[in-house]
């Protein structure tokens, strides 16, 4: 059971996330029945599973929630802000509950009770029938200590056996509900010679004392055919079967088998009840109503990420071997081998693309979190903001999405806090819609994915004015620029990504939240991505994040430096030039002229302390770094190469400009160079870029 429990935990986490997503969706379309159905279904699955695997707190809790949504479903309740708030808080609470440990159980239980109280308060406040609600939950919990006594008359149709039913099973089921007093009626059994062995002649009169309600008894008979007669009625709110003497009286009455047995029983009941100091008598029959549900989600199979990683690993191996095969085919002219090798290359490529796409998930997966953030923070700051998203089907590697969520949260937080105007009046005065807007936009471009967070708030004054001056002052203070130098718009925005330039401190006086844009930039750089800000005063701010599609394959340029293979990501390669070595050696200020532009050079041979003499003709690859180009000198260029990234051993942990390596067709290793990291490092130690 323990093993299943872990599996359920995983499942529950997904269900909770789905619930959160659905509730947020419901907020926008309160009347949408199918969303309510969906919320209900998710809660129900959660409840069923938690009861199954012993998460009793979740079971209790979701039960209450489920009741609310059941009532919304039947139209008894309306979706109100209070209900949505409670449900969303509940989502957070559920997340804690699923992680319950013996140590935290007491604490969680306390919270649980607090929550249940809250729910009840909200419901009673909302002019809803809270009594009804409470009763309902009490009934279901079976905590009501009253045991009631029911009368049941069961008369199976004569063909009852024919659909494989057995009336004794039903009687068994009744016995499981509580104490019983059962009297079979044999009067209809014909003479032996007239008995048809496939017919049922017996009926039953019985009393059952149970804590369950009448539905539990009705349920037992749900599957009897329509021709069978079933009567269930409450005889007393007391347990009449507890006392032996009472049982005897009742048994006698039952044995008489009157046509109006229930009435006859009812006559004796008051006396018996009186004997038990009770005087209530109530008879009720309950009808069952049916409801319909519509359900929809996308079909998918869940596979453990470990299996996926293995698969990807094997495909990577296959790609490597395939490259070896191609090389061998080129070098050895075997007749007939070339077409086979080509075919394998084609299939391998398709296989690789398909397998790698398995890891891709749509960005919509992280949207719920942002929606929550916008909702909660805007409430907190008393701003009216809508969150919109576009291009949510854009897919990214699961790992990237996971690591991306935090920085994007930070950007959105900034937008809400500092971007959107303090008041709606301020917005209206500027001729903008009263509601602030934050747009999450995702799209593909080439082998990259772009994600933009666009707000229509105040924007940053880049030209002159307070913001620009503040940034300038800060930059001068940090000795990043000299007091005389002009800074461009672009540079100004770039400064915002440096430590100490947090938007909070610059744009408004509100304090930052500990994480500045420098951290955002670093986190995105870890994903081999880039981030940029653009803003127009009065119109809003756009933050654009550029990301690679996947982290495990790099389209690169294979080069050689001192006989060592290196792969430079093609996305940052701009152009390749050829220079005589002496020209590079004599370059003034380490700058060379490429297409009439002065470009600083990073001599890889020198940088990595390679001692062998360089070839007379060296290649310079210009690498894009922001708006500048940096020239990397290499010995030889071999060509384009799709590198499957393999991690380097722990001996290489101390550096981060070689994030990994790849195995070439001939089995040799090529180091994959992270040009951005290298340039950053180089810029820190050697020259100032762009000046």
């Amino acid at each position, binding site marked *: *059971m323990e093993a299943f429990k872990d*599996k359920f935990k995983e499942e529950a986490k997904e269900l909770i996330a789905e619930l959160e997503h659905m509730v947020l969706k419901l907020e926008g379309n309160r009347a949408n029945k199918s969303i309510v159905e969906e919320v209900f*279904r998710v809660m129900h699955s959660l409840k*069923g599973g938690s009861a*199954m695997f012993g998460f009793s707190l979740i079971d209790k809790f979701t039960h209450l929630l489920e009741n609310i949504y059941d009532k919304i479903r039947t139209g008894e309740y309306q979706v109100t802000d209070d209900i949505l708030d409670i449900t969303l808080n509940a989502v957070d609470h559920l997340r804690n509950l699923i992680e319950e440990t013996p140590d935290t159980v007491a604490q969680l239980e306390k919270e649980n009770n607090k929550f249940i109280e809250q729910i009840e308060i909200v419901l009673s406040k909302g002019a809803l029938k809270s009594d009804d609600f409470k009763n309902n939950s009490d009934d279901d919990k079976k905590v009501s200590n009253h045991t009631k006594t029911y009368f049941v008359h069961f008369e199976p149709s004569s063909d009852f056996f024919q659909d494989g039913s057995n009336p004794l099973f039903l009687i068994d089921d009744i016995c499981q509900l509580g104490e019983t007093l059962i009297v079979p009626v044999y009067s209809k059994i014909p003479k032996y010679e007239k008995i048809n062995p496939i017919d049922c002649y017996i009926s039953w009169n019985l009393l059952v004392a149970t804590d369950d309600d009448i539905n539990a008894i009705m349920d037992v008979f749900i*599957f009897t055919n329509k021709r069978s007669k079933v009567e269930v009625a409450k005889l007393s709110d007391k347990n009449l079967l507890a006392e032996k003497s009472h049982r005897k009286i009742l048994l006698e009455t039952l044995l008489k088998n009157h046509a109006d047995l229930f009435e006859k029983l009812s006559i004796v009941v008051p006396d018996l009840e009186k004997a038990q100091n009770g005087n209530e008598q109530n008879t009720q029959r309950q009808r069952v*109503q*049916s409801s319909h549900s519509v*359900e929809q989600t996308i079909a998918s199979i869940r596979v453990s990420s470990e299996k996926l990683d293995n698969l990807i690993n094997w495909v990577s191996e296959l790609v490597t071997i395939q490259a070896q095969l191609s090389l061998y085919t080129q070098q050895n002219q075997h007749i007939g081998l070339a077409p086979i090798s080509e075919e394998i290359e084609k299939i391998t490529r398709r296989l690789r693309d398909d397998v790698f796409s398995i890891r891709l998930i749509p960005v919509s997966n992280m949207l719920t979190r942002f929606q929550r953030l916008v909702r909660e923070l805007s409430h907190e700051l008393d701003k009216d903001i809508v969150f919109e998203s576009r291009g949510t089907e854009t897919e990214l590697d699961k790992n990237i999405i996971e690591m991306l969520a935090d920085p994007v949260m930070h950007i959105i937080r900034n937008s809400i806090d500092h971007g959107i105007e303090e008041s709606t009046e301020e917005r209206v005065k500027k001729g903008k819609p009263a509601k602030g807007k934050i747009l999450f936009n995702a799209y593909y471009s080439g082998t990259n994915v772009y994600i933009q967070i666009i707000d229509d708030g105040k924007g940053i004054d880049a030209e002159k004015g307070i913001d620009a001056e503040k940034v300038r002052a800060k930059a001068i203070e940090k000795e990043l620029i000299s007091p005389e130098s002009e800074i461009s718009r672009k540079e100004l925005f770039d400064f915002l990504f440096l430590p100490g330039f947090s938007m909070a401190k610059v744009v408004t006086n509100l304090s930052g939240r500990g994480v500045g844009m420098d951290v955002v930039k670093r986190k995105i750089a870890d994903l081999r991505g880039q981030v940029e800000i653009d803003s127009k005063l009065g119109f809003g701010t756009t933050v654009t994040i550029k990301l690679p599609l996947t982290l495990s394959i790099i389209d690169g340029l294979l080069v050689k430096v001192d006989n060592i293979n290196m792969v430079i990501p093609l996305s940052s390669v701009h152009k390749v030039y050829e220079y005589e070595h002496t020209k590079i050696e004599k370059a003034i200020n380490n700058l060379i002229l490429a297409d009439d532009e002065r470009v600083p050079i990073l001599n890889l041979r020198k940088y990595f302390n390679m001692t062998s003499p360089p070839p007379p003709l060296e290649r310079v690859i210009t690498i894009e770094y922001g708006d500048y180009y940096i020239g990397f000198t290499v010995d030889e260029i071999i060509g384009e190469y799709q590198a499957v990234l393999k991690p380097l051993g722990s001996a290489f942990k101390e550096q981060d400009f070689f994030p990994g390596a790849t195995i070439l067709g001939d089995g040799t290793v090529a180091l994959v160079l992270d040009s951005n990291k290298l340039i950053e490092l180089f810029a820190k130690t050697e020259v100032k870029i762009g000046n």
Partner: protein
Amino acid sequence: MEKKILIVDDSESIREVVSFTLENAGHEVVKAIDGQDALTYLDGRKYDLIITDLHMPNLNGIELIKRVRTIEEYKFIPILFLTTESQTAKKMEAKEAGATGWIVKPFVPEKLLEAIKKVVR
């Protein structure tokens, strides 16, 4: 008695628990992740029993039961569904769709096997 049983549930953990219990009891188990998936397994192969959840995406349990009953080979196959106690209305609906009986969630292995014994001979 070794039986071939089709389990339909969108929750992997429930699916595993049920199949674990049944396999331990010596039955052969086929698993489907929802109603739609289940129909692909109902292609004429012989089963002794179908156990299905009611709340599932794509094709829910009720719809599945209705569809199964329209297939000639499975007209009389016993179908049990999994349900929680609070859902009387659902039970009626499932019954009308053609279910044979139900198993209340949460269940213990013995209960499950007992319920199966009642419908499979």
